[in-house]
C-alpha cells in the first residue's frame, strides 16, 4: 500500500470545522497574567490614549493551546511527509539549527545594540559570508535582503547604481527568460527596468539566437537561474555570459536552483557578477508556512561598494559594521533575517566539506532517479538529463481523459504526498515539476512514482468524478471563485461584493 513515502499512515485526517479563536472567546476568560504595577501609579492624560479596551479574543490558555494545536494537525509539513515541490527545495530542516537559533544570546539581542556588545552575531555573519562566497564563487556578500525576491531587487538595484556611476543610464533593459520565476520580471519592474523576454529553445535552454537579437546598447543585464526552471543546465552559459558582458551588461544569478550545483560548479565561475541565494531552500532553514526566508546577495569585488549595508568587516580582530561607499541603501530595517542566516550556517557546519562537496550531486542523483521512475508513467517535458528537478507533462492525459496537472496534484494529496509544482514553468503545457531534494530515501521516491501510476489508473477508470479528489483530507477542493467575488478576509461580517477586475 502506498502511504506517503516512509510514513505508515496518512498524515492528515478530516473532521468537523475548527472554530476561529474569536468563536472560542467568552467574556472574562484570559490566558495572560502580568505582574502588579511596581512603580507609583500616576494619572495619565494624553490625547493619543483611548478609553476602551482592544477587542481581542478572551480565551483560557488551555483553549488557546488546543485550538492552535488542532490547527497544526490540519497542516502538511516536511516533518510529516514528502514535498516533491519543484523550485522550492523542501529538504529536511535539521532540528539542531533551531536549537542554536534559540540560544538566548542570539535570539534575545536587540538589533540596535552597538557592535561592541554583539561581536558574536557579527562573527556569525562573517563566517557565513566566507562559506557563501566560496560556494558561489563570489567575493563579498550582504545579508540585508530578507527573502529571495528582495535579493533579486537588491541585485537589480546594484546593476542600476553601477550603470549610473559608469554614466550608462541609457542601459534600461533587463533580459529575463520566458521560463523565469514571476519574481524576476516583478523585481526588474520595481527596480525601474524594462523587462525583455528571451525565448527558450527546443531543448529547454535559453535560445542563443533570440538572445543575440535582443541584446543591444540598452542591455543592462540578464537574470538567469542555472540550472533553469526546467531543471536543465544551461550548457551555453559561457556564450551567454560573453554576449551580455560584451554588450556592457551584468549577469545576475537567481539562486532559486542553487541546490543543484553546490559542490559541483559555481555561478561565479560561469561569469555571473551578482548572486542571490535562498538560505531557506538550499541551506535547509524552515519555510515557516511561507516565510521567513533569507536572500543574501553576493557579488564580485568590483561591485562590493554597491552592496546594501551595513555589511560586516573585520578590523584587526574586531567585527564592525561598514556601509559600502556607493551602497544602494538598506533593504531591511536592521540586519536582515539574522536567525535564518544563523540556521544556514549551522547547516553548513554540520555538512562540512564532505557534505557540501556532494550536496548538489546527491540532489541531482535523486532527481535523476525519480525522473527515470516517473517517466515510465508520464512523459517528460525535455529529453535532456535533468539536474535537481524535472518537469513532466500531463498534456496527453488531458487530451484523452480531460485529466489536468491540477488533478494529478490533488490526487497525490490523498496518497500522503504534497503536490509537485503545477503549471510552472509557464512555457510547458500541463506541467508537473518535481524536486525530490537529497534528503529523501529510495523507497520514498519509489512510492511517489508508484502513486502516480496508481493515480493514473484510478482517474482514467470509467465514471470517475475528478473534482471529488482529494477525498481523505480535512477539506475537499475549495471553491476559489467565491472569495474573489465575495471577499471574506475577516471573521466579522463585512463582505466586499462584486469586486471585478
Amino acid at each position, binding site marked *: 500500500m502506498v502511504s506517503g513515502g516512509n510514513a505508515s499512515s496518512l498524515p492528515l485526517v478530516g473532521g468537523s*470545522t*475548527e472554530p*476561529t479563536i474569536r468563536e472560542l472567546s467568552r467574556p472574562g476568560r484570559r490566558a495572560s497574567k*502580568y505582574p502588579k504595577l*511596581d512603580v507609583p501609579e500616576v494619572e495619565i492624560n494624553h*490625547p*493619543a*490614549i*483611548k478609553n476602551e479596551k482592544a477587542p481581542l479574543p*478572551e480565551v483560557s490558555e488551555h483553549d*488557546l*493551546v488546543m485550538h*492552535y494545536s488542532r490547527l497544526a494537525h*490540519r497542516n*502538511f509539513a516536511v516533518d510529516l511527509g514528502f514535498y516533491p515541490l519543484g523550485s522550492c527545495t523542501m*529538504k529536511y530542516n535539521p532540528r539542531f539549527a533551531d536549537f542554536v537559533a534559540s*540560544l538566548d*544570546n542570539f535570539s*534575545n*539581542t*536587540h538589533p540596535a545594540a*552597538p557592535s*561592541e556588545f*554583539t561581536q558574536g*552575531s557579527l562573527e556569525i555573519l562573517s563566517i557565513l559570508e566566507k562559506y557563501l562566497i*566560496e560556494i558561489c564563487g563570489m567575493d563579498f556578500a550582504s545579508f540585508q535582503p530578507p*527573502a529571495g*525576491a528582495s535579493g533579486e*531587487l537588491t541585485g537589480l538595484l546594484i546593476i542600476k547604481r553601477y550603470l549610473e556611476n559608469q554614466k550608462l543610464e541609457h542601459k534600461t533593459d533587463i533580459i529575463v527568460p520566458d521560463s523565469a520565476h*514571476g519574481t524576476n520580471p*516583478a523585481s*526588474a*519592474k520595481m527596480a*525601474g527596468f524594462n523587462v525583455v523576454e528571451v525565448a527558450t529553445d527546443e531543448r529547454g535552454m535559453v535560445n542563443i539566437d533570440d538572445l543575440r537579437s535582443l541584446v543591444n546598447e540598452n542591455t543592462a543585464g540578464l537574470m538567469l537561474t542555472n540550472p533553469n526552471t526546467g531543471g536543465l*543546465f544551461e*550548457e551555453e552559459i559561457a556564450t551567454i555570459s560573453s554576449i551580455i558582458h560584451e554588450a556592457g551588461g551584468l549577469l545576475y544569478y537567481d539562486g532559486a536552483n542553487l541546490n543543484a550545483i553546490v559542490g559541483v560548479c559555481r555561478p561565479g565561475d560561469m561569469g555571473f557578477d551578482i548572486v542571490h541565494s535562498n538560505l531557506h531552500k538550499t541551506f535547509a532553514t*524552515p519555510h*515557516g*508556512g*511561507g*516565510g521567513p526566508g533569507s536572500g543574501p546577495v553576493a557579488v564580485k569585488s568590483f561591485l562590493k561598494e554597491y552592496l546594501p549595508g551595513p555589511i560586516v568587516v573585520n578590523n584587526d580582530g574586531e567585527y564592525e559594521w561598514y556601509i559600502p561607499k556607493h551602497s544602494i*541603501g538598506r533593504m531591511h530595517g*536592521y540586519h536582515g533575517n*539574522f536567525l535564518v542566516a544563523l540556521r544556514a550556517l549551522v547547516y553548513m557546519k*554540520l555538512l562540512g566539506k*564532505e*557534505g557540501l*562537496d556532494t550536496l548538489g550531486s546527491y540532489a541531482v*542523483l535523486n532527481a535523476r*532517479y525519480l525522473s527515470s521512475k516517473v517517466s515510465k508513467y508520464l512523459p517528460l517535458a525535455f529529453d535532456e538529463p535533468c539536474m535537481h528537478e524535472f518537469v513532466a507533462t500531463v498534456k496527453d492525459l488531458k487530451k484523452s481523459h480531460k485529466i489536468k496537472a491540477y488533478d494529478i496534484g490533488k490526487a497525490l*494529496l490523498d496518497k500522503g504526498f*504534497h503536490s509537485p509544482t503545477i503549471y510552472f514553468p509557464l512555457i510547458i503545457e500541463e506541467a508537473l515539476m518535481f524536486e525530490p531534494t537529497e534528503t529523501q530515501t*529510495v523507497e520514498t521516491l519509489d512510492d511517489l512514482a508508484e502513486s502516480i501510476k496508481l493515480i493514473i489508473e484510478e482517474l482514467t477508470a470509467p465514471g470517475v468524478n475528478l473534482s471529488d479528489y482529494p477525498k481523505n483530507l480535512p*477539506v*475537499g477542493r*475549495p*471553491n476559489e471563485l467565491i472569495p474573489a467575488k465575495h471577499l471574506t*478576509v*475577516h471573521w466579522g461580517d463585512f463582505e*466586499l461584493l462584486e469586486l471585478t477586475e
Partner: protein
Amino acid sequence: MFVPHSNLDLNTIFDELDIKSLEQLFTHIPKDLLIENGLDVEDSLSELEATKYFQDIANKNTSNLVCFAGGGHYDVYLPPTVKSLTMRPEFMTSYTPYQAEISQGILQVLFEFQSLVCDLTEMELANASLYDGATSIAEAISVAINKTKRDNVVISHGFNPNSKQVVNTLIDSAKFNLNYVELDNYLFPEDYEFSEDDAAFVVSFPHYEGSAQDLTNLVSKAQSKGVVCICYVDPSMLGVLKTPGAMGFDIVVAEGQSIGTPLSFGGPTVGWFATKKDLARLVPGRIIGETIDNNHKKTYVMTLRAREQDIRREKASSNICTNQTLNAIGSAIHLSWMGPEGIYQVGYQAIQKASYMKTLLKEAGFTINNDESSLREFLVKTSIPASEVISLMGERGILAGIEYDKNQLLVALTEKRTKAEIDEFVFAFKEVNNG
C-alpha cells in the same frame, strides 16, 4: 549528512540510471566549469562539537543586558506558550499554503492573524505579512502612489533612521519626491498644508522620538486633498493608544516584532499591513479568504491571487513571494494569549514605568526633551556623548537605549522592566554622565 543513502541504496540508484559514480551525472556540464578539488571549507562538525562551537560564538555577545532600547523593537514579555505553539513543526516546516486541502492549519491561523490585526487597528483588510516594519512603509507608499497616480510623498521625519533609509532605497527618487517634514517640538505640525500633488501622508504613531499626538485632524485635512494616509504604529501599544482606524487612516503598517517574536537581532520579525477594503486590489503580498469546499464545508484559501508576482509577473502589485508567515502566526497566538486585558497591561505599564523613570531622571537633574508628549519612549539629554553613555552603561549590564544624536539618548520602557531595574538605570546614568 542528511543524505539517507546506504551503499546498497546507491547501487539501486546507479543501476536504474546505468551509471557508476556521481561524477557521471555531470558529463553534460562543460569540464572547465566543474569544481576540481572540492570547496575550500572546513570539515564537518558533529552536533556535540557544533554545540560548543556555536555556544562559544554566542558568548561573544554581551549576555543579559537589561534592555532599555526600542526604536521599533521592544523587549516585551513573550510567553513560552506562544513560542512553543509557533514552533510546532507543522507550522514551521510547511511551505506556502498553495494546496489548500493540506494547509488548512496555516490558512486558518493567517485568516485569524488578518482578523486580529484588523480588529486591533480598526481596519478592514489585512494581508498575511510583509518582511518587517521598514519595508512595509515602502510597500504602503507604493500602494498610495498606484492609487493616486501622484508623485509627491509627505513623510514625517519622526521615523527610525533605518526605516527612512529603507524607504529611500525602495521608492525610486528619480520618479517620486520624498518630502520629509521636520517635527515641530517632537510632533507633526498640525498646521501642515497638504496639496493635490501629494500621494501619501506617512507618519509614525507614536513618533520615533516617543511622542504621540491625536492625528485625526491631520488625516482629515490630507484626505480632503485626496491624499492616502499611512500610519506606522507600535502594535504593542494598541491596548491603550487610539487606533489608526479611529483616526481615519487608509493604511496601517507596523513592525510586528513586539507581538509574538523575540528581539532576534532584528530578524526575522514581521511587517503588518492593513487597509480599507477599497484598496484591496493594490495590496501587496498574500491574502487569505474564506470560502467553501465541494461539500459546502468552510474552507480557507489564498485569494485575490491576480495581484501576485507568480501570476501577474511584471504587472504585480509587489515582487514579494516568501514573507514572514511564521512570525505572523506568532503574532496571532500572542494577541490571543494577551487578550484585551493583557495588551492593556503591556501598554499601560510601559507608560507608567516611563513616567516613573522620567520623574527620577528629572529629579537627578536631567532634561527630558519631550517629557509631556512622550509615552513609553523618550529622549533624555546626556552630558557626555550618548554613544559613550551606551558603552559605559553596557559595562554595567544595561543596554541604555539608542543614540538619537550626539547628546540625546532614546530610552524605551516595556512592561517587563522592574522598578529595581529602573532605579539601577538612573543610578548608573548619573554616575556615567557625571564621569
